[in-house]
């Protein structure tokens, strides 16, 4: 008899626990906001260089983005050339990018296009700083979602000195500087 009572009590407690789990899950799920992913707010980023070193991936999932629509297409590009550069070629004494990920192409006098090779880019932000100090700030760092493994707690965000990492809805996972930017998402 006491055995039976015991079992009944057990079942009751078990049911209560299941209800509690369900309740917690429902409480957590009450805001059906979309899936969130990590992204860098370019306005807050200070180009400290930790994106290149603190990502769990190597090379980092953070890459330099280039918003062409706000680029000045300058001959003397602050993001491409070292400030003390004497020439405009890709020699080691002129180039700013440590991995030579920026290609410079002549468009028409006096404009040059600067394109970033994402396979080479390590997200160090050196060019971003250059473009910000002497340029329109058209180069900036963003998390590339095809590479990012979307850690529950982003390791770079822990190390970010300016709180620039935030969770954004996956449906619009980029914080581009210009609305006019053409995008390809495939």
């Amino acid at each position, binding site marked *: 008899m006491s055995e039976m009572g015991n079992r009944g009590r057990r079942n009751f407690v078990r049911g209560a626990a299941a209800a509690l789990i369900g309740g917690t899950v429902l409480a957590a799920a009450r*805001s059906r906001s979309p899936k969130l992913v990590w992204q860098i707010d370019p306005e807050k980023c200070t180009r400290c260089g930790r994106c290149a070193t603190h990502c769990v991936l190597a090379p980092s999932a953070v890459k330099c983005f*280039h918003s*062409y*629509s706000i680029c000045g297409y300058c001959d003397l590009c602050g993001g491409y050339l070292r400030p*003390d550069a004497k020439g405009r070629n890709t020699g080691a004494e002129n180039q700013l990018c440590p991995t030579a990920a920026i290609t410079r192409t002549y468009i028409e006098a006096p404009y040059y296009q600067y394109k970033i090779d994402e396979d080479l880019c390590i997200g160090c932000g050196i060019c971003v700083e250059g473009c910000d100090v002497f340029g329109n700030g058209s180069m900036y760092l963003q998390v590339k979602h095809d590479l990012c493994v979307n*850690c529950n707690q982003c390791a770079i965000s*822990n190390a970010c000195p300016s709180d620039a990492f935030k969770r954004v809805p996956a449906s619009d996972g980029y914080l581009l500087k210009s609305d006019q930017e*053409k995008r390809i*998402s495939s």
Partner: protein
Amino acid sequence: MTAKTQRRKVNARFLTTEARRLGVINIFLFSVSQCLRGMRNLSALASLRSIILLVFVAVSAHAEFRFPMPEFSTGYEHPAVHTPAPNNAMVGWDVAVLIMTLGLASFLVLKRRKRKEIFWLTLFSVIYFGFLRNGCVCSVGSVQNIMAGCCDPNYGVPLTVLIFFAAPLIFALLFGRVFCAAVCPLGAIQEAVAIKPVKVPLAVEKVLSIFPYIYLGLAMLSVAMNAGFIICQYDPFVGFFRLGASFSMLIFGALMLLIGIFVARPYCRFLCPYGVLLNWCSKLSWKHATITPSECIDCKLCADSCPYNAINEPSAKKEPEPRLKGAWRLGILLLMFPILIALGFGTGGLLKEPLSRMHPTVRLAERVAGEELGRYEGTNIESEAFRGSDQPVADLYAEAVELKAGFAQGSRWFGAFIGLVIGCKLISVSILRKRDGYEPDRGTCYSCGRCFKYCPVKG
């Protein structure tokens, strides 16, 4: 002081786009040469900036940009920016594999009762949930997402995470901690290295088992105060699964594994916060793994087989002490229970300052305040970044003060929680339970199946 104006007026001469461009280049070179000639970079750059600004603000249509965007005569068009969407392909699979492995693990533990088969499933989990899926999202970390979802109405918890959180708990309610046995990649990697487990004295084991509660409490506090997911931050093994992590993280993980050779599953037993929830659920489990397939014959063969101290021995035939003494002690402990909670509450209050440092904003505010008091030499990277931003110091301080108030509350409740846990543990060991044979402790047994083969009774 009029000089400034005049000098600037000289520079405003460049009017056409072309001339402006050339002019800026000249000024750029001039400024660079000034830097090189030993003038302070900063002031040279600052004057450079303001000169450039003036030149363009005056005439440019795009006032916020330093250089005007060109209009191309060759019909050149801006290339598109590559903005790939997040990769979701595996998510459905993950949930399916999780449920399947949980089911399979339950089947192996309760029906097949073969340690070897359970171990193979364990290896599968290490490879799939660990190395293939990079160990993220895992059920252990999902506790934080659930908490965040409960605290922050703007934080949405994806369905996958909800299932990763709930499924192992439901299975624990039904079949015990089969999740720990063969599904959790963190448990699995430790299970794989547990070669020469030694027994930790039972009393020590029980005392150490309050650390998961402390960890859980801290993690919940951190999430509630929006200070980040510390369980993920200090995940010891995710670095191995991704074959790359910070050096300290790898060292921590390696140490855990080294210890794990002798003290089996150190993370699960003495740290894992999710284990706390699983423990509770497993205590209520509907069916749980048993050592013997039928009746225990009290042969004592299995007594030493469990590296986790999770086998309860049958209770002594004779009363260990006069009933009255035990009852007295229980009474005293029950009286002490509220006192313990209150003590925890008070002690937690002491921890307001240290715990508030979990939040980066509080750390930053303290750093900035410390710099103001001259406690540090120079700035650090965070305070530097802050000083470079537009945020007023007063705002930062106000935010930090508000957060600290939150932490003051939170750390008190955290302390009370720990007091409650200690009280419960004291009371639970002081209740005399009758056991007829050797049986696994429902709360702490990981259903790893080691003891099965030690039982001479065959079903």
